[in-house]
Every structure is written in structure tokens, then in C-alpha cells.
């Protein structure tokens, strides 16, 4: 509680936002009926078109739908996970136009024309992305819940280093960004692993990058 009090609040937040999810997924009636209907404003919807893993998608959504919920509840791409739903854990990381973002803190309707890659789009069970294969080889997970976010993040991190984006631990801002264990740990800090598979995750990423951590 002492270090990050907001985390404690997230459970309440998830309960409070539950009603919107219920309406979308058609789960049992009880919760929906519990909401006093006379105070609920009419739902606004908006259209959005974007590409997910190479496939064009057209959706009409409640404006409140996050990109994460659009992927999971509307497109049935459940590889991307909902952890904290507050941008704190990284389980929902996807790659949009080449950049990793937290899909929970982004509205789906704000992604008109975007190209989105989820863990399903990186590779398939028969043809794994090198990062997926390395996570398996190095045991970069235990329960696996954070893994899709870790893998999307890791793929983007290597691109960020190539693109010479510096990090908090880069010693010199004016020399090209370098790959090291410290760099990877810092750059991956937005992806929390409750099982603590961190050292294997760093080994998997280093393996793909072709260097030792």
C-alpha cells in the first residue's frame, strides 16, 4: 500500500466500470439491473475502421470502449490481456503503427486508420515470431498472463533501440542507444510479471537481439 496507493484503488475502479462491460458482453442480468436506469445517459456510439494483424476491421462501438475491449470483446482477439486496466501493468501492450502502447488507456474510436498488431499477429503456433520462440526457449513466463504484453513490448523495445531512442539508464544522450541488460530491464519496466520471470525474459530478449544480458 505504501508505495503505489493507486493500485489498491484499481479493484474498486474495475467494479465501478463493470456495468459498461456487462452491457457489451451480455453477462448475467443482475448487475445490469442493479444500475439505476433513470440516471444512465443514453449510450453514444461511433464508427471506427482500423487494421488488426493485417485484417481491415469496421466497428460501431460505444464510445467508452477501450482499444483493449474492442480487441478482446468485439474481435475475439483474447491474446491481449486485461491486467490492471489503468496503464500500470503492461499486460494490454499492443503495437500501433509500429509503437507499443497500453491498449487499456486508449479509446478504440481514437484509432481510425491505424494498423494494430497484437500477439496473435506476431506469429502463429506453426510459425512463431523469433521473440515468441525465445520466450519458450528461455522459460520467460510462469502463469503466462503477462506474456503477450511482454512479447509485444519486447519486439518494440528492440526497434526503439535501433531507432536510437534513449532511456533513463542510457549513460550518454548523444551517442547511439545501446543494447545491454540494464537497458532492457529499464525499457521493459512498464511490463510487470507477478510470477517474477524477469531474468528469463531478459535472456529471451537478449537472445533475439543477438547479445548477452
Amino acid at each position, binding site marked *: 500500500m505504501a508505495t503505489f496507493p493507486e493500485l489498491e484503488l484499481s479493484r474498486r475502479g474495475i467494479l465501478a466500470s463493470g456495468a459498461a462491460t456487462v452491457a457489451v458482453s451480455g453477462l448475467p442480468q443482475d448487475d445490469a439491473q442493479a444500475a439505476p436506469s433513470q440516471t444512465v445517459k443514453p449510450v453514444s456510439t461511433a464508427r471506427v475502421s482500423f487494421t488488426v494483424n493485417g485484417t481491415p476491421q469496421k466497428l460501431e462501438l460505444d*464510445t467508452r470502449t477501450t482499444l483493449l475491449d474492442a480487441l478482446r470483446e468485439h474481435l475475439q482477439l483474447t491474446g491481449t490481456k486485461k491486467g490492471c486496466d489503468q496503464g500500470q501493468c503492461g499486460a494490454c501492450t499492443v503495437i500501433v503503427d509500429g509503437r507499443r502502447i497500453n491498449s487499456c488507456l486508449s479509446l478504440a474510436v481514437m484509432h481510425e486508420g491505424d494498423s494494430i498488431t497484437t500477439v496473435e499477429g506476431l506469429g502463429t503456433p506453426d510459425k512463431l515470431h523469433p521473440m515468441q520462440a525465445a520466450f519458450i526457449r528461455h522459460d520467460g513466463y510462469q502463469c503466462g498472463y503477462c506474456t503477450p504484453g511482454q512479447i509485444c513490448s519486447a519486439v518494440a523495445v528492440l526497434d526503439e533501440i535501433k531507432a536510437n531512442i534513449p532511456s533513463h539508464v542510457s549513460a550518454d544522450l548523444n551517442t547511439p542507444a545501446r543494447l545491454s541488460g540494464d537497458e532492457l530491464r529499464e525499457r521493459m519496466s512498464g511490463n510487470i510479471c507477478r510470477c517474477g520471470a524477469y531474468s528469463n525474459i531478459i535472456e529471451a530478449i537478449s537472445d533475439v537481439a543477438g547479445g548477452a544480458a
Partner: protein
Amino acid sequence: MKPFSYERVTSPAEAAAAVARTPGARFIAGGTNLLDLMKLEIETPAHLVDVNGIGLDRIEPTPEGGLRIGALVRNTDLAADATVRRDYGVLSRALLAGASGQLRNKATTAGNLLQRTRCPYFYDTNQPCNKRKPGSGCSAIGGYSRPLAIIGSSDACIATNPSDMAVALRALDATVETVQADGTTRTIAIADFHVLPGKTPHIETALKAGELITAVTLPKPLGGTHIYHKVRDRASYAFAIVSVAGVIQPAGQGRIALGGVAPRPWRVEAAEGDLPKGAKAVSARLLAGAKPTADNAFKVSLVERTIGAVLAEVKGKA
């Protein structure tokens, strides 16, 4: 989340007009702060105006030899810009010390400046909070106040401003450029941008309702050694307990701004004359009149030590 209608706009003028036209309307940029607060129903806009399509995403030199940073420039791009890295290193460092790679990819210059406090009671809608609900009281006073302010606070609110970027901008004397629905533009010095809470902690900036930030401008480079030292509860991905932005010249003069201690980036220009005398002297003048709580009194000595660490690092680099 409360229902809201949504609209995309393609120019700054259209954005300002759209917010002025619709009651309860707000701009949304990266969404990383606003959406978080909307999920908790701390923010309840009736209409969102998406400003991601209005341009303002470039970093350009100014005729005065400074830099103009568009309101929509992402924190990642600002930190990685070659000129910023070379001439305004303290800004790159402050940005890179904040949030995570994912969040910085979405977070914008304007959104970062306007992010709201991380006071735990502001986030807990079951607790009184003058900032969230004016007049309801302040739960932090007499409550859990370890992360909160030691100076600049009031009897109504002791929250801190959580932005790292703003601390660097304060050290650099940046200015904020805006436009309003009637087309009026103005510039606001960063020193005047965030306001102290007084009796109205829900008012956090000098912006008028519906005023759109278009850019942040940096004056000519200062030279010197640029350092941002952030002390936090874990090595990465945590808000500052105390942070120090320093731009220190070879003769020992320079500028110091503090984060994590006040409702706005904290800088006292008069204290900077004492920089050559060392951390103790500067810190005493910077924090004159501080009113820490029992929980956060440690920040007073932490500020002195962090300034000391910055000055030592400067010596090490010389």
C-alpha cells in the same frame, strides 16, 4: 465510465471551437491520464474532442534560437529529439524518468503538463477531497501524506504536481502557447502556468475553460551540465518522491527546480545565487517556509541530499 459523445477535429481552431460549443466538452490527446480518471468517474466529460488530428506534432527552431515543441509531440519523440538531447538534456532526462515506454509513446506535451495529482485520496472517490469535490475536505491532511507536498500547499490541499517534464520546463523557463475559441492567442510563462491551491485546489492552471495549448517554447540553450535526478520508491516506473532538475554552469552558478514537493514545479530564483555555496545553503532558501507533515518531513533533508547528489555529479563530469 459515464457515457460521452466523441468528435475528431483537424485544426487547432476547430478544436477550440468544438470545446467551446459543447457543454461539458474536453480535449483528449494521448488519453493516458484523462481516460484513467474517466474510468474512476473522477473526470466525467459529456463530450470528447480528439485533438490527435490537428497537427502540432513538430519540433522546430524559433527565430530567437530556441525551440518550439508542438502540443501533440509525444513524450518519446521529445526525449529522443537530437536537438533536445544536445541542448536541453535536462528535458530529455526528465521525460525518460517518467512513466513507461508504452505511456511515453502516447503521452503528449500538453497532456503531460495538465496531468492531475496522484494524491491517493484524489483517486479514492469514497473519501473527501477538495480538489475532486470542492468543499468536501482534505483527507490527506491528518491522513497518509508521505508522497505529498511540503511547500506551496494550503489548508485546503497538500497534493503535489506529478509531472517530471514540467520540472525540467521550469528550470528551462519555457513558455506555453495557447489559442481560444475566439482566435485569441497568448503565451503563459511556465512559472505562472500551474497555480497554487489556496482555497481553490480544483483550479490547477492559468488556462481558461476551453483554452487549447498549441505549443511549448524553449528559450535559447543555456549550456552547462544538465541533470535530472529523481528519487522514487523503485528504480523505474514510479512517481517522484523528490526530484531535482539542475542546469549548472562551469563556475558553479545555475538553475535548480524541484519536483515531488509542491503543487507545482518548485523554483526560487533567488536561492540559485547560493549554488556555489553548496546544497545546504540552496536547499534552505528553496524550502524556506516549508510546512511538511510528520509523514513527509523526511523530504526536507532528501531535497538537500538530492541537490548535493546533482552538484557532485556535475563535479564528476567536469
